């Protein structure tokens, strides 16, 4: 009896059967939507891999391992050797990495140790972020009109053929583009070094340089390595700026000033013109290679970071 009374008094608690069914349905649909979207992403990733693999099969069957060591790429006679592009890709990426490492480390120390907060730190942090925000195509355009003439005059002075464009020019632009990525990680791991470790060294009379050299760098080694690795991942797949600056030559580069081609730049240049199944398939095979390599690099890099930040 008391129950009935209370139910009549408080109508709000009474929800119709229909209403409940409607809510339950929406609730179930909502949860299904969340689940499906998460599954969807995993499926899309797998589908990307499978699509690339299947589409590369004609080329893999026709060319086989010759794709890796073949020196000539001549679609007219259906000859697809990828060695020039493999070398071009590795050379530009490694050179870019070498150029960028001292800068990434310096900026990482600047933001993570010397100027951890305040106006100066804020300004430089924003500048580095903006460096990452500038589109690749604009770096390429700028490089074409500013960097290429500079490199050309350098080449004239050195007495090498003054192409202006080439591996070296591309690597400089790539270095500029990957610095922000390495820096954001390097600065982060450096700022995570426990204060008590540093204080212990200071209390023994160490200078800041000695603290950096003996405490900070050893402590953050794996994190800095991950930052460089992720930079490498970006450099390998970077397309537009490199396409505009590398000179698009199908010959194996003989020096760092030679023009060349990377896998990404060949795809960008030839994909829409690729007639013939094997030609297109060979380009897709390079895409597959880039996908696999960057994925491995990314997974390893992020593992290392995760382990570092847990420690």
């Amino acid at each position: 009896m008391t129950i009935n009374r209370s139910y009549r008094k408080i109508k709000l608690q009474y929800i119709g059967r229909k209403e409940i069914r409607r809510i339950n349905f929406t609730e179930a649909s909502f949860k299904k939507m969340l689940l499906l979207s998460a599954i969807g992403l995993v499926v899309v990733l797998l589908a990307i891999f499978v699509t690339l693999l299947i589409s590369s099969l004609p080329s893999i069957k026709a060319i086989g391992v010759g794709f890796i060591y073949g020196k000539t790429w001549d679609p007219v006679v259906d000859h697809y050797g990828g060695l020039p592009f493999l070398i071009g890709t590795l050379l530009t990426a490694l050179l870019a990495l070498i150029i960028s490492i001292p800068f990434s480390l310096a900026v990482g120390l600047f933001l993570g140790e010397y100027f951890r907060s305040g106006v100066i730190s804020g300004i430089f942090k924003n500048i580095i972020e903006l460096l990452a925000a500038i589109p690749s195509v604009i770096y390429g355009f700028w490089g074409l009109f500013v960097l290429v003439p500079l490199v050309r005059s350098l080449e004239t002075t050195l007495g090498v053929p003054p192409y202006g464009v080439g591996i070296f020019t591309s690597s400089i632009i790539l270095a500029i583009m990957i610095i922000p990525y390495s820096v954001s990680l390097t600065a982060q791991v450096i700022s995570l070094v426990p204060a008590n470790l540093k204080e212990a060294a200071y209390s023994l009379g160490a200078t800041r340089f000695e603290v950096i050299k003996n405490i900070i760098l050893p402590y953050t080694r794996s994190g800095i390595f991950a930052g460089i690795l992720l930079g490498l991942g970006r450099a390998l797949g970077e397309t537009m700026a490199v396409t505009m600056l590398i000179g698009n030559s199908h010959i194996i580069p003989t020096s760092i000033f030679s023009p060349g081609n990377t896998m990404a730049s060949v795809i960008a240049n030839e994909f829409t013109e690729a007639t013939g199944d094997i030609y297109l398939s060979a380009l897709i095979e390079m895409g597959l290679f880039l996908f696999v390599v960057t994925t491995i690099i990314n997974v390893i890099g992020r593992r290392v970071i995760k382990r570092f930040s847990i420690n």
Partner: protein
Amino acid sequence: MAGTILKAKNFNAFFGQNQVLKNINLDIMRNDVVAVMGPSGCGKTTFIRCINRMHELTPDATAEGEILVDDKNVYKMNLIVLRRKIGMVFQRPNPFPTMSIYQNAIAGYLLNGIKLTKSKKDEVVETSLKRVALWDEVKDSLHKKGTFLSGGQQQRLCIARAISLNPEILLLDEPTSALDPISTSKIEELIYELKKNYTIIIVTHNMQQAGRISDKTAFFYLGEVLEYNVTKEIFTNPKHEKTQNYITGHFG
């Protein structure tokens, strides 16, 4: 039993393998204030979170046995119906940060999509805020964010939010543990007022508080109810040695 609003029967609760409530049997009368007391980790909070089934939000959390509200097993009721019937106030004040004081007071309606006319809304806001004695303090700033209020005011706003849906039972999980003494005494006065309309179950650490405001007290120890009796009786004449120790401050 006439007048029994809540009944726990052989109730057990677990976190994974870990049993946190052991064979709870408890009857709570309509319009009583029941204090749930005991040392930390004894399952008090888990117990009241089982009443409106917030317990099962935690991954791995399970329960068995029965809790009856108005003779209906809560584990067989629709969650929405159950939770509208039972209001809850948490340890730390948690007004919705994106809502104004006004919206917070009728959040139960807004979020549940219950349409009200403007005048009805105003009425609900005013009555709920008056019931928690907050109206005079905030009536000129109803459209400010709820998070601008002081801790004590925020907690009263949370109580207003809980009672605006006219629940039958109000669960309070250490509602004053994050508040200063003045705010605490205001909330205690409020509980005294609210008991005319609601059945209140309050988890508290504070023995004086239990003594001041409750009609009955349940003493929890390691997941069991060691003693459940009229508060005065528990404080003056505890049956169990552990209760006695706790009340006299020997542990906890």
